[in-house]
């Protein structure tokens, strides 16, 4: 009994000590309290922006888990893998979820038998290839409508290419091995029909567990992104990125660290406009929503590290090549 209580006591005293430290810092170091409060504004801002999408994502995931049978899913998906990847890349037009909501929903769909390459193509393309993001990019780059078109096109192309490569190369289950996937791989008999109340209860259980599972990575990712945001000055970044050759790569790195939501990053990109060429801004706008600090942690929570690293490096290489090409032939 006492041994079980030990961790609880440890946690309570840690929180208590933290609170006391905070109070001391607040009273004796006025400046630090303001800094902490500003950190809080950005940190909570990022979390609140993502929260509705995260809840929507876990709700969809729970509904998929309880109501979508594997047979129905197989019927809905296009049979040919390349068609499936295409459909997945365009799915965001119908289901515009942001990546915080997408990852739990897709993880569940893959467990239900959706091919992983199609699921990953949706995760990569969905945050960009959707009407909300298209219109915000259009608005932010009012003078150059090519940006919105190039952004959507390149994001789809990168997601399609990665989906196709994964279709050819992915041999084993890319999901992290846990109890759930272990069970899912067992031959399944049709579960006995359960009353509505039971199903609802089961859906709510799944939704809350997944909220905690995904939420902890979201909080960690948001904290790291905020740390970067509040500690590093943007003009410093712009000076660093002055080199033309490296500016694409550099802005991709910035997009990764800033972890902005894909609906608002176009405005930030437009504000970099004075210091960077359009091609580099395009790389920022395509790579950031696909892979950033926040979504990388969410991906690592669901997929094997090898798969995540493969997907992230492919996305980086394709975005870089694509944005260079488009800068040469299409962008003003």
């Amino acid at each position, binding site marked *: 009994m006492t041994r079980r209580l030990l*961790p*609880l006591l440890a*946690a309570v005293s*840690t929180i208590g000590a933290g609170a006391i430290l905070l109070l001391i810092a*607040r009273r004796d170091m006025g400046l630090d*309290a303001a800094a*902490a*409060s*500003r*950190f*809080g*504004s*950005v940190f*909570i*801002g*990022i979390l*609140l*922006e993502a*929260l*509705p999408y995260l809840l929507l994502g876990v709700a969809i995931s729970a509904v998929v*888990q309880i109501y979508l049978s594997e047979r129905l899913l197989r019927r809905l998906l296009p049979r040919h893998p390349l068609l499936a990847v295409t459909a997945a890349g365009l799915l965001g037009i119908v289901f515009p979820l942001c990546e915080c909501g997408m990852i739990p929903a897709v993880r569940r769909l893959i467990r239900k038998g959706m091919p992983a390459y199609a699921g990953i193509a949706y995760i990569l393309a969905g945050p960009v290839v959707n009407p909300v993001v298209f219109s*915000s990019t259009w*608005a932010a*780059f*009012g*003078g150059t409508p090519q940006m919105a078109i190039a952004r959507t096109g390149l994001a789809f192309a990168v997601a399609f290419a990665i989906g196709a490569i994964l279709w050819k190369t992915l041999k084993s289950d890319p999901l992290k091995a846990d*109890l*759930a996937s272990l*069970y899912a791989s067992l031959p399944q008999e049709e*579960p006995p029909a359960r009353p509505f109340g039971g199903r609802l*209860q*089961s859906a*709510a*259980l*799944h*939704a*809350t*567990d997944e909220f*905690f599972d995904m939420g*902890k990575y979201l*909080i960690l990712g948001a*904290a790291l992104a905020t740390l970067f*945001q*509040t500690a*590093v*000055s*943007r*003009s410093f970044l*712009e000076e660093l990125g002055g080199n033309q050759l490296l500016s694409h790569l550099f802005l991709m790195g910035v997009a990764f660290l*800033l972890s*902005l*939501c894909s*609906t*608002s*990053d176009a*405005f*930030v990109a*437009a*504000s970099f406009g*004075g210091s960077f060429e359009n091609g580099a801004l395009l790389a920022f706008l395509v790579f950031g929503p696909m892979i950033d600090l926040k979504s990388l942690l969410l991906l690592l929570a669901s997929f094997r590290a090898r798969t995540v690293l493969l997907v992230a490096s492919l996305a980086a290489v394709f975005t870089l090549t694509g944005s260079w090409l488009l800068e040469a032939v299409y962008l003003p």
Partner: protein
Amino acid sequence: MAPTALAALHHAAKSAVLAALSLSLTQLARTGTLNRYIAPKLELGVKLSALALFALAVFRLWIALRAWQGDDAEADCGCGAHGPAAAGPRQLAVYAMFLLPIVFGLLPAVPLGSADAARAGIHLPGAAAEHPQRSDTAADAEAFPFDEFTRPYAELARRLHALPLIDVPEPLYIETLSSIDLYRKAFAGHRIRLTGFVHRDSGATDGVYLLSRFAVSCCPADARAYGLPVLDAQAKQRRTDEWLTVEGVLEEGVYDGQPALVLRAEQTRSAPPPASPYVYLDPDF
């Protein structure tokens, strides 16, 4: 501890965390302080999330009570997706992590200010830079030439130009300053009244500071600072981050070595910090 009691404890802890999150969101919405963290267009989503979290908290509490009585819902879910309740400090640390945002939310409100403007970089009202002015040949003769992207700015400029004093309104803050900047020549000599906080960057001198506001599109992570250079005889006495309402005349001048529209202050008075710390782009503009 008996396994049923341990399971009940975990359900109860989850319920408590969900309830705490929901109640703190409700508190933010009730006191009208959500605008410290997100744009008004996102508030509905957050309020609905608070409701959903509360419903889940009640549900988990009910599951906890049932588990206490030896009837664990997870055990008979049958989907195999629930591991045995992970006990120990790791799981408790996860619960504590979810309370972290609440702790930060309890800190006194300090909206973004001058120090953040230095970090995020300040923008002089920049419609001209973001929307290169390409006037249609037909419109060239007009005082406010426009193309398809600057049309709303030209219309706003025409309305503003007819006013004896431009009192920059909060809902159209960025749009108003952008319009004026786009047609600098036409607005030189015009009277304007503007509220913002004092910010100083490399271009600030003894007689000049920037009167600034933060524009947010979703949350403070994407905040951009906008500022108009103010020529003020008493500039030295203005504290950085102080909120001021400045009335004066617009002039074509130079700021930080670049041609810029500047405001020559005539009347300056201190202003209370505005209720909404940030300004937002009007989605209908």
